[in-house]
Structures are given as structure tokens and as C-alpha cells.
């Protein structure tokens, strides 16, 4: 996936933006999807598809703790993806020219 595609996926919705901010501000956060939804002031239904997209992209990972499925930031993958975004943005000139 190119840096441009990663960027589009990361900023595809307001909820996804909120999730990115939440996990980047709290990189050690481990919580259920319900808990994550509450933290960004939304319902589980409102965030579930965006959490899935971030899981698929690899920014988030999921594991089982006791009876609960929890999600957390994969810091290494997140760094790798943001690096590809940074490299993409290096080639873009503000104003639209390449």
C-alpha cells in the first residue's frame, strides 16, 4: 500500500481521526471496543467499522484478555505506516503540484 493510500485510509472519516488521536496520545492504551468508543464520546456501533479498518491496516491489533477482546496500538506498524505517509508528503507540494 502506498503512502498516499495509507493517508487516505487513516483520514477516511472523523471517527478514524478521533481514534488515531486517542491512540497516539495514549500509546499504551489497551481497551475493549466499547471502552474505546466511550473514550471518543461515541457508541460502539459508530466506531466498529473504523476500528476494523485500522485493524486491517495494522495500526491497531486485537487480543483476548480473560473474556474480553481488546484493541491496542501496534507501535512498530504505526511508525512504519506514518513513515510511508511522511515520505509521500515529502513529494507533495502545497498547492497541489508534485
Amino acid at each position, binding site marked *: 500500500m502506498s503512502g498516499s493510500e495509507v493517508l487516505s485510509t*487513516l483520514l477516511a472519516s*472523523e471517527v478514524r*481521526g478521533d481514534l*488515531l488521536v486517542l491512540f497516539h496520545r495514549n500509546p499504551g492504551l489497551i481497551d475493549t471496543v466499547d471502552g474505546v468508543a466511550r473514550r471518543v464520546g461515541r457508541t460502539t456501533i459508530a466506531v466498529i467499522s473504523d476500528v476494523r479498518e485500522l485493524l486491517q491496516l495494522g495500526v491497531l491489533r486485537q487480543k483476548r484478555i480473560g473474556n474480553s477482546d481488546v484493541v491496542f496500538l501496534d507501535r512498530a506498524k504505526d511508525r512504519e505506516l*506514518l513513515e510511508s*505517509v511522511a515520505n509521500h508528503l515529502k513529494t507533495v507540494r*502545497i498547492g497541489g503540484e508534485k
Partner: protein
Amino acid sequence: MMVMAVRARESSSTNLHGNSESVSASLSPDQRFAAEKAFSSVLVSTVREAVGNALGHNVLEILTSKGLLDDASNSREFDRKLQSLFGNGAVVLERIVVKDLSRKLGIRYDSEARLDYEKSLETAKEVCFVGSRLK
């Protein structure tokens, strides 16, 4: 004067059609300069935090070196720059900025309302101006 500040806050939402002209007209040139400077400072730091928190500090530094934050208080220009860099993603970053700015200034934020970035910044600026007139 306190009443005015409270009113500004009560009526403030993402899409408040505030007009800073009316408030700024009653400020002395020094007050106006100080208020503009204070608002610009809050806005730039909010934009830095928003971009840094969403996309990381490497991305923030690259965008800063490309001039994203030059004249950040010019909302139309900032919007144009964000659109050229992020396309549809620009509105997501703008929402993060407006949400954080609203929190810092004590303005009610309505996530359901359609975002009008320019008007939201006008509202925030008005609150800053009212605050400076109370000083």
C-alpha cells in the same frame, strides 16, 4: 461584560455564524493587536497538536517545513493548503482542530453539525476577542 462573554460561549457551536468584526471594532488598537496575536498563537499550537496527534511528529515537521503553518490564522488559505495535501482527509484534520480549539476556549462543540471551518474559526476568534475586552 461578563454577560457578553457568557453569551458568546453559550451561542458558540461549530457552525455559529459569529462575527468578530463587531467585537473587534470596540477594542483599542493595542487590545486588538494583542487579541489577534493571542488567537493566532492558540490556533497554531492547536493545529500543531492536531496534526501531530493524528499523523505523528515526522509528518508535522515535514508539513511545517513546507509552510503549512505559515499564516495559519488565515482560515481560507489554511483550508486550501490542507485540501491540496489531504484531499477529502482535510476535513477530518479540520474537525480535530476545531474540536481541540473549542475545548481550549470553552466553546460547545457539536460533532453532528456540518463543519464550516472558516465560521468555526470566526467563532473562536470572537471568544478570544471578548475575553481580551474583559481584561
